């Protein structure tokens, strides 16, 4: 069976463990129904104060703040869900933005709900809120394979590598925008529009808080911002195995090497190497996680809410013993016998899926 463990920021029950206290060690999450029936967790998506889990069989569960209907469950039930509750239907991909979610159904149609004051929901001009999953305004026949959300925007990719986006676009996050009569670029896109990019086929895409990164064949990466620029790859990166973004930095993994670019105010740019080879990395808003071949999970970056675990010198239960805010070196958060099958990061939250 599979278990999902979480730690970090929990003020709105976004860890789904029944409590609203922050956690600096991994603890089981809870489901409103029985935890053992859901099968294999495939993806964990974290929003500002809510979290989604996608299972292999297409079920999706959500927990945390439901203030604007961003859990996709019946908002009449409550303003938050302290445990993971099911969203009706079967889904093939999920993503969370700041106060909204986007779901792809098995046909590849996008649905969204929650709050999107800048077009994040993509359900029509000026429509800012939906209490339950609502069909995104996509032209007939257009379907998507993958969806991702930034803080205030959504991008979905078609089977043939084309990107469509909606939400905030003032900084060029969805491609260069036309200027309005006041001389400023258009600020919001309320229904999906095709992104104009230098790439014929986009293999991967990731969003930072104010820009979007797209990758084509041969590890060619562009940054979409106020201008479109090619990202110069460090010579240490032979082949990009993974690209992940925090809100203000980007991280390339090439086998056991991670090369980071961007904001380093809180140790976000990794400057440490674990003792054993890497399996994968994941990022949250301003912290990162790595899984190693010896089945250990380490965290780094901004860890103020316990999302990077507790400091090794903080082993007693003395609450006066403060953990550091910044973890500039890798900090061990999981070292147990059960096999880790996935890791994930949200807004100051960390997630480890184990098989027991």
């Amino acid at each position, binding site marked *: 069976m599979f278990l999902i463990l979480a730690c970090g*920021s929990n*003020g*709105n029950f*976004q860890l789904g463990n029944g409590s609203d206290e922050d956690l600096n060690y991994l603890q089981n999450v809870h489901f409103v129904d029985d935890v053992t029936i859901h099968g294999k967790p495939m993806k964990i998506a974290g929003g*500002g*104060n809510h979290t989604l889990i996608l299972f292999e069989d297409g079920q999706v569960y959500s927990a945390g703040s439901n203030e604007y209907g961003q859990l996709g469950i019946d908002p009449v039930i409550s303003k938050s869900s302290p445990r993971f509750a099911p969203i009706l239907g079967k889904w093939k991909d999920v993503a969370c933005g*700041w106060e909204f979610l986007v779901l792809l159904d098995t046909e590849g149609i996008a649905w969204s709900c929650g709050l999107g*004051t800048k077009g994040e929901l993509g359900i029509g001009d000026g429509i800012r809120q939906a209490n339950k999953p609502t069909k995104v305004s996509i032209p007939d026949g257009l379907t998507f394979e993958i969806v991702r959300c930034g*803080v205030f925007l959504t991008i979905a990719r078609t089977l043939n590598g084309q990107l469509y986006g909606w939400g905030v676009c*003032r900084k060029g996050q969805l491609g260069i925008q036309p200027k309005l009569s006041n001389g400023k670029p258009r*600020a919001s896109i309320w229904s999906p529009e095709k992104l104009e990019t230098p790439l014929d086929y986009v293999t991967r895409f990731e969003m930072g808080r104010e820009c979007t990164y797209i990758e084509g064949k041969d590890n060619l990466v562009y940054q979409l911002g106020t201008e479109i620029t090619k990202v110069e790859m460090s010579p240490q990166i032979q082949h990009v195995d993974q690209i992940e973004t*925090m*809100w*203000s930095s980007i991280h390339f993994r090439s086998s056991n090497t991670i090369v980071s670019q961007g*904001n380093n*105010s*809180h140790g976000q740019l990794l400057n440490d190497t674990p003792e054993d080879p890497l399996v994968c990395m994941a990022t*949250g*808003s*301003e912290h990162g996680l790595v899984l190693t071949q010896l089945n250990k999970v380490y965290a780094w970056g*901004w860890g*103020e*809410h316990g999302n990077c675990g507790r400091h090794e010198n903080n082993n007693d239960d003395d609450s006066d013993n403060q953990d550091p*805010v910044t973890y500039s070196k890798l900090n061990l958060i999981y070292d147990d016998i059960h096999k880790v099958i996935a890791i994930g990061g949200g*807004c*100051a939250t960390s997630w480890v899926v184990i098989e027991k």
Partner: protein
Amino acid sequence: MSESIYDEIEIDDFTFDPVTHLLQYPCPCGDKFAIALEDLEDGEDIAVCPSCSLMVRVIFDEDDLEQFKEQLE
């Protein structure tokens, strides 16, 4: 002081609430950075988060504040 500033954010990216007079922007912890319009008028430019130690510097000109003042009352 400057080493504790997490990032710099343009005022156009903040959301203004005419009732509370607060300009707000998401914090990576899940809460929101906030600064009062009156504080910006007094020349302050650091927005703080009530739930963590992170702070951001607001990038703005005096003229940028007019659009928010117009929304009051």
